[in-house]
């Protein structure tokens, strides 16, 4: 279950706004986190709290293939992203990095900045605790929840491979 304050962004939030290329000479998550969403909202890294939720419009994460974008969001402590729609490469990268994302146009439209939001990855239920409204996104399937729990695709594969080889012993 994810719970946090909503930070609202517009349509076509691109990877240059999520993590500007001037910081890409590093791939250290903590370093990237310091500049998360900086060109969309310069004070975002300073003002956000651990667990907070990003609300995006359509085509969230468009632009570059840089995994630094979901890495920066995750390392900053954002618990999940809800958007009207996601750009293709970002969608794939987010799950591969272990960042939960939810596609839900109604929630993306109606949730207001500062609302307290609770999201269940098991059911896809999005609750706005501030105004009492509820929305439904696709639940995240079990394998993907395990992948997120493991911390991303490679860690998931490594854990799975280890478990398999131990069983074979």
């Amino acid at each position: 279950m994810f719970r946090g304050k909503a930070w609202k962004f517009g349509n076509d939030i691109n990877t240059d706004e999520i993590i500007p290329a001037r910081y890409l000479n590093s791939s250290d998550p903590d370093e990237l986190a310091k500049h998360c969403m900086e060109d969309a909202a310069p004070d975002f890294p300073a003002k956000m709290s651990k667990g907070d939720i990003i609300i995006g419009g359509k085509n969230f994460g468009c632009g570059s293939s840089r995994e630094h974008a979901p890495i920066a969001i995750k390392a900053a402590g954002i618990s999940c992203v809800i958007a009207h729609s996601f750009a293709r490469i970002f969608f794939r990268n987010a799950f591969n990095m272990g960042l939960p994302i939810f596609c839900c146009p109604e929630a993306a439209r109606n949730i207001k900045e500062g609302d307290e939001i609770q999201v269940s990855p098991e059911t896809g239920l999005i609750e706005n605790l501030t105004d009492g409204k509820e929305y439904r996104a696709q639940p995240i399937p079990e394998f993907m929840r395990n992948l997120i729990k493991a911390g991303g695709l490679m860690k998931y594969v490594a854990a799975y491979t280890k478990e398999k080889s131990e069983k074979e012993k």
Partner: protein
Amino acid sequence: MLELWGLIMGMTISEKILAAHSGRDRVCPGELVIANVDVALGNDITAPIAIREFEQTGVKNVFDRDKIVLVPDHFTPNKDIASAEQCKILRDFAKKYGITHYFEIGEVGIEHVLLPEQGIVLPGEIIIGADSHTCTYGALGAFSTGVGSTDLAAAMIGGKAWFRVPESIKFIYTGKLKKWVSGKDLILYTIGKIGVDGALYKSMEFTGPALKYVDMAGRFSMANMAIEAGAKNGIFIPDGITEEYVSVRAKKRYTFYDSDSDASYSDVIKINTDIIDLQVACPNLPENTKPVGELKDVELDQVVIGSCTNGRIEDLRVAAGIMKGQKVAKYLRCIIIPGSQKVYLNALDEGLIEVFIKAGAVVSAPTCGPCLGGHMGILASGEKALATTNRNFIGRMGHPKSKVYLSGPAVAAASAVKGKIISPEEILK
């Protein structure tokens, strides 16, 4: 059953390539397939993450040292210590595993100019690259798409990647091209029409009789910007123009695929090229396109001619043709970036470099550099640039309060001379 009823549909070129690489007779949009990749590409921004993930798995070797391509092109020649460290990760990895296609400074070019030029990517292949503009190679009739570093790491280990077979949108270009109009103008016009998510998750298939007037350089520009409409890939049906380009470069066999006449498309969009003027995309999205004539008095601080979109010899010829005997406007910085060493050398042989230098432009070594606000031409607050690059997002070329306009090389060269955005007709009349 469908076969028995004669209802089976044909396949698009993208579906055929995906089927051929996943050991299938046919694939349908929406299906997930695991496919063999012919080339897996990474650069100095994305490969370090992939290499770190590769090393953490403890595997002993790469799947095929000839099929992994490492191109340190973004922040090279190394712009600072951190970038030097990133490039060192690529170099050390290339040495350790004997990677055939690693390009050191002196031979490196902008990846999407370099790979086709070297015959490393070919028609009918599947190419994945940890760079969103990997879709460029679709110009050759290949299925080529950008992925993240993790997908690259997995491909470096196993030589495979999973794909959701995309729906295709067929674009049919008919008509002739107006003077100066290039592939860049066609794609900017197209993105202006469908929007930056107009082809989200889909394949953009570029077809139609007008494309016989678009050379390979123009086709690379078009496929390159498919991602700017949200597409998974952009693809051309290979023809005589493709064959002429590829036959002299290929060192291995390649296959031309064509879409069946009864292939299914999620949309068919007809575009009359007779009405397309020179295009400019205004800040801050590539979809904000206008004919150049509608832009009045946009004064410029910088012009960049280069990038994976427009850094080829054909682009430099157009720019030099306009700048010959002219001077870059006072207080404007004009930066010319040949896309590869070969492009640079050709430009030198043809006297283009001399034209640029005499006009007061600066010529850089091949690099992505300013396109993504890396180095070699960063903008200050409030400054405006016109670039032949592919993105004009907020802060793309420097300060978040700077602005980037996009165009083809003809408008860029003319605008560098005039100091504001202008059509080449205005300075050549």
